[in-house]
């Protein structure tokens, strides 16, 4: 598979920001991404985002389909332990149909207490729910009528509401940080969706684990292997560093308070380290040549062939986002393809 270039429209905004304006900006970003020849738009999922505002994943992906008619649309990721499988399977079947078969279904466990409580999911039951839900979703997508009794649902001759466009179903990417989750991703997913927080050396170690686990389950190495990274690209190295500094700090302070660090492997757990130390081997910061080199290195070292970049830190102005999108499309993508 050729290298795929994706963009994550994270869009975390301050609580007093005007979301009608921010939404129109995100639509403009989606149109530009489509026009510049990117392959994919990704939207993540969190609930109860105070003190930030964020467009919710499924409504947003459905709305931008018409603005971005060519790119694939990645729900990266759905917090699958929280949701009901009938609902999720049906939403994504309709979305796959409306988008002409452009959906990617990413899923992961989630980790925030406020979300687990709000959805009535006891913490210790998350893995069971996740695995049962995924099995139910897959069966609803592929079987004619499904009867299956899970711990928290019962499908009694249930049927999907519209047929899937992709055969047999949208790709299932599984987000995983901890070793045990990576093993689960190998066993259950079409691929492991490598996360944006971990250092390359950690990912290299975990990639060996992932390969071992694939072999154990007699599964081939995935044709498509995606990773998400924070990318700060500017015309010169110094401008890129200057661009990155405030956003990285703000973002990780927020994640820290949400408890994301607890879901990470021990050696990577302190994500509030000093910026420079934090950024090294974890974020991609540089001029177009440097960013292209990093993309190629990720491809060579980790085997990833779909790099999804997040470019908009909290508070980053729209003009800056659009500039980065254009710069990467025009100066990074051709270099990576050539290499």
């Amino acid at each position: 598979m050729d290298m795929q270039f994706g963009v994550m429209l994270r869009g975390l905004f301050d609580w007093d920001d005007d979301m009608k304006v921010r939404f129109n900006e995100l639509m403009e970003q989606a149109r530009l991404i489509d026009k510049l020849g990117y392959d994919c738009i990704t939207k993540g999922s969190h609930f109860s985002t105070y003190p930030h505002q964020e467009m919710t994943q499924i409504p947003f992906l459905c709305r931008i389909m018409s603005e971005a008619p060519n790119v694939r649309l990645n729900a990266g990721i759905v917090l699958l332990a929280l949701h009901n499988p009938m609902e999720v399977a049906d939403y994504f079947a309709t979305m796959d149909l409306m988008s002409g078969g452009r959906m990617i279904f990413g899923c992961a466990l989630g980790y925030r207490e406020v979300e687990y409580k709000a959805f009535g999911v006891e913490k210790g039951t998350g893995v069971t729910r996740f695995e049962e839900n995924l099995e139910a979703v897959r069966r609803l997508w592929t079987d004619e009528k499904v009867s299956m009794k899970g711990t928290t649902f019962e499908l009694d001759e249930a049927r999907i509401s519209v047929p899937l466009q992709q055969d047999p179903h949208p790709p299932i990417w599984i987000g995983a940080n901890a070793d045990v989750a990576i093993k689960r991703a190998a066993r259950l997913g079409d691929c492991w969706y490598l996360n944006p927080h971990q250092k390359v050396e950690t990912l290299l170690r975990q990639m060996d684990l992932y390969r071992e686990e694939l072999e154990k389950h007699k599964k081939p190495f995935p044709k498509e292997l995606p990773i998400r990274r924070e990318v700060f690209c500017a015309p010169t190295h110094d401008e890129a560093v200057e661009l990155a500094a405030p956003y990285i700090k703000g973002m990780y302070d927020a994640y820290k308070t949400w408890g994301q660090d607890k879901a990470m492997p021990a050696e990577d757990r302190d994500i509030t380290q000093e910026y420079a130390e934090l950024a090294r081997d974890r974020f991609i910061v540089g001029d177009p040549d440097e960013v292209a080199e990093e993309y190629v290195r990720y491809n060579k070292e980790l085997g990833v062939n779909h790099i999804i970049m997040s470019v908009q830190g909290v508070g980053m102005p729209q003009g800056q986002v659009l500039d980065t999108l254009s710069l990467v499309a025009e100066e990074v993508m051709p270099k990576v393809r050539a290499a």
Partner: protein
Amino acid sequence: MTRSQYTRTEDMTARFEELLQQVRLLNALGYDSFAKGNHYSSDPFYEFQQLPLLCRLMADAPDMRLIAGIVLLALHKPLEIAEYFATMDVMSGGNLVFGAALGYRDVEYKAFDIKKGTGVKRFEQNLEAIRRLWTGERVNMKGDYFELDNASVSMPCVQNPHPPIWIGANADVAVDRAARIGDAWYISAHHRKDTLYRQVEFYKRCLEKYKKPYPTEWPLRREVYIADSREAAIDAVRPYLGLKYSTYHAWGQSGPMPQGDTLGLEFDDLLQNRFIFGNANEVAEEIIDYCRLLGTNNFITSCQWPGMPHTMVMENIEMFAKDVIPKVRQGL
């Protein structure tokens, strides 16, 4: 109402393109809103899912309000619904209506792990939680099946204080509940007219009981089809509308109907006093009659049923806008 239910032999990609054309036509003709219902596992039909469909269609109908009519609220978790619909309210520029009702189908209740006797409690707790999430910054509330622990929505709604909350209700006890907790009672397409006269009086008494004002907007949905004559209209829709109601009866929709009524009737008996068929004049007069007697000021028509050809739908959308709407406006 863009019902979007289809038989399971149809090409759904083609049907989706047709649905987009219908919505563009509605927008161009000046209709005020479009509604989409909610079912899971709608065997033997195909059906687009409500929330994704409304989000996609809003791109093609920028001037219209969108009605989630209704959400099966007992099945869902309140934080999820509050956040999805807040995002939809923002994306649509404050054009969203939130309809909610209990639901009744076993296959849905089982799939969502809802024990039948707990539906009402879940419905009421969920609605209270959604309302609080839409109006407060941080919410603490412990329901039987969820706990909001300093939780927030991901953004506030555009409409102040929140999108209108319409409650679907069939039986008297549900109408009472609609008066107590809703902004309006959303009257279904399948209530008989004579039942409605009685229930509307009942609803008004309930509003008085709860010291709530008469709703400023009062919606009514009806199945409507226009042809040269009433007979021609009935003949034209018989295969499609007949299939819809025999299926809903088999799903159990007759269970929560008002006392003494059922959908388990032969088609010719079913349509009496319930659906609006005729030429444009007759249809307009009947709508005026409903509006006068009930006080309805938001009339939602359905004119597409499973298996019905796209051209029939497009023609009826156009005829209704050109020949019926002006007469109704004039007559009221």
